[in-house]
């Protein structure tokens, strides 16, 4: 475009003012990127949850255990295809900051229930034949540089003050980009035998069940809870998505908070950039008059001003989003709490559109003013 040097020249005329405005746009878009990643990390799990899976947990709270014997009774309920159980292990590797989830499971049931986890036949066989065997997801294996055959010591304060030694027999991958591959899973039989009396032998954390027809999930959930009504451990059954959301909810309504912060930031940005542009046009009304005298049409003058504000906003937005990309590409900053911490392409696209909208919104008023300017009057101002 042959007017590029003119637009660029105008933009860089007041270097300090332009730099400061640019900086505020960059900061806002870095913030935007990071908040999107945080929201994705906290809410992404909900969307990854299977629609045909239900979670059965203790009615009172998540940390109360359920008898392992419920499994047989659950599987007898019509419409249920499969049930498996997991228990929160809550261990750490070497150091408390090295947190990642672990759970004892029954291997065959677990692998059938979680088709989103990809484990080779060889690793699967090794797990089935090794009582102390454990499998771990790619992200955790990479994080600690674990290899097949490693002995992995895990300390858990929940199950006796001792170190549990596992043999790493398999590493699984996620079928999709957003699949959580942090978890380590080991065999329930080994776990149950190794727990001491008084450490909940025969009790498990929660059941995951798969229904044959997702449309009937609500009805089946009710049937499960009825089955255990008036027993020592009553249950609460809900879709896996709601269960994951329950975790996220403990932190607050993330979407609302993120949205609120962003609205405030962008409103401020609108004022800052808007006043920069208004000033930029006000101080060069005479020059705009000269351009019109030379033969620039009102439309061309409007476009020049709009192009300038859009260039400023898109430059700042692009820079900010790039920085956010760079930061989030290094993955989870908390070392395990936010496994899905990444900037989705759709959030990037949203950021791009926002920066363009910012440019248009802040440019349109001064551009309109420049367009309406009567050339003879503008020249008198010189």
């Amino acid at each position: 475009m042959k007017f590029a040097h003119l637009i660029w020249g105008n933009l860089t005329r007041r270097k300090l003012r332009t730099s400061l405005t640019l900086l505020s746009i960059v900061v806002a878009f870095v913030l935007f990127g990071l908040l999107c990643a945080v929201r994705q990390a906290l809410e992404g799990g909900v969307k990854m949850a299977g629609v045909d899976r239900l979670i059965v947990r203790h009615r009172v709270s998540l940390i109360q255990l359920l008898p392992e014997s419920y499994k047989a009774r659950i599987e007898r309920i019509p419409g249920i295809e499969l049930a498996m159980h997991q228990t929160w292990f809550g261990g750490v590797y070497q150091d408390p900051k090295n947190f990642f989830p672990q759970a004892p499971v029954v291997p065959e049931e677990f692998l059938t229930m979680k088709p989103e986890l990809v484990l080779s036949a060889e690793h699967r066989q090794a797990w089935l034949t090794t009582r102390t065997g454990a499998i771990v997801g790619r992200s955790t294996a990479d994080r600690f540089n674990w290899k097949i055959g490693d002995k992995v010591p895990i300390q858990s304060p929940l199950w006796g003050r001792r170190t549990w030694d596992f043999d790493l027999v398999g590493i699984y991958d996620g079928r999709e980009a957003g699949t959580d591959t942090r978890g380590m899973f080991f065999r329930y039989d080994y776990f149950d035998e190794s727990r001491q009396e008084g450490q909940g032998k025969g009790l498990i954390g929660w059941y995951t069940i798969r229904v044959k027809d997702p449309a009937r999930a609500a009805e089946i959930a009710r049937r499960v809870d009825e089955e255990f009504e008036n027993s020592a451990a009553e249950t609460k059954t809900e879709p896996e998505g709601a269960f994951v959301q329950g975790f996220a909810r403990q932190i607050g309504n993330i979407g609302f908070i993120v949205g609120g912060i962003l609205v405030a930031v962008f409103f401020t940005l609108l004022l800052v950039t808007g006043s920069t542009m208004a000033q930029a046009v006000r101080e060069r009304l005479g020059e705009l008059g000269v351009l019109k005298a030379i033969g620039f049409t009102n439309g061309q003058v409007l476009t020049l001003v709009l192009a300038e504000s859009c260039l400023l906003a898109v430059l700042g937005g692009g820079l900010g989003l790039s920085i956010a990309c760079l930061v989030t590409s290094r993955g989870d900053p908390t070392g395990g709490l936010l496994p899905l911490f990444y900037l989705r392409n759709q959030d990037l696209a949203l950021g791009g559109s926002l920066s363009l909208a910012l440019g248009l919104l802040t440019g349109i008023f001064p551009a309109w003013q420049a367009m309406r300017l009567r050339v003879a009057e503008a020249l008198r101002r010189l």
Partner: protein
Amino acid sequence: MNANGKKADPTALVRVEGVEKVFHRGSEDIHVLSRLDLTVATGEFVALMGPSGSGKSTLLNLIGGLDRPTTGSVSIGDDRIDALSDRQLAVWRARHVGFVFQLYNLLPVLTAERNVELPLLLTHLTKAERRRHVETALAMVGLTHRAKHYPRTLSGGEQQRVGIARGIVTDPTLLLCDEPTGDLDRKSGDEILNLLQALNREQGKTIIMVTHDPHASARASRTVHLYKGQLASEPTP
């Protein structure tokens, strides 16, 4: 003159006929030009003089298509420019007029050559063609060696020469100058006047120049005086 319905001079390039210009400032009407006629033939160099506030710039703006008369008509060549829309006027100006201003009015963010190139951006010329035109225009005003300089690093006289180069780079039908030497010392002013005179004599450019300075008007082929909204060939007290 044809304010009384006489046949227009066919050789005339500029025909201003029965023009009135009224400005409104609040409730007050300011009658600047009243029933004014002016004819300028192709190849003339006309100096327009008159006291401050007499409406010289106003008249020049009407001829240059920067403003429209309240009544009356302004024709340049075959175009009735008072009847054109804003957009048509802009396109017409780009093709037919070059302006030279008292305060040069170069864009401070562009180099001399980029300033001169500005009117060419509105044409269909290629980059190479634009470059050639700019070089020619700068050579004509003797500033080839200043092409890459920004206006603030040039003297007033040099800036005005860049202004003239910008005014003539598209080879316009008409060159309009509003006190082109008004802000310059005698020597630089003379250089500018020499340049305008050469453009008129050697290139046959039609020039209308507003000036306060008799020394400047002496260079023109004809001088008209504006007084109380009307023109006279001789200065009126």
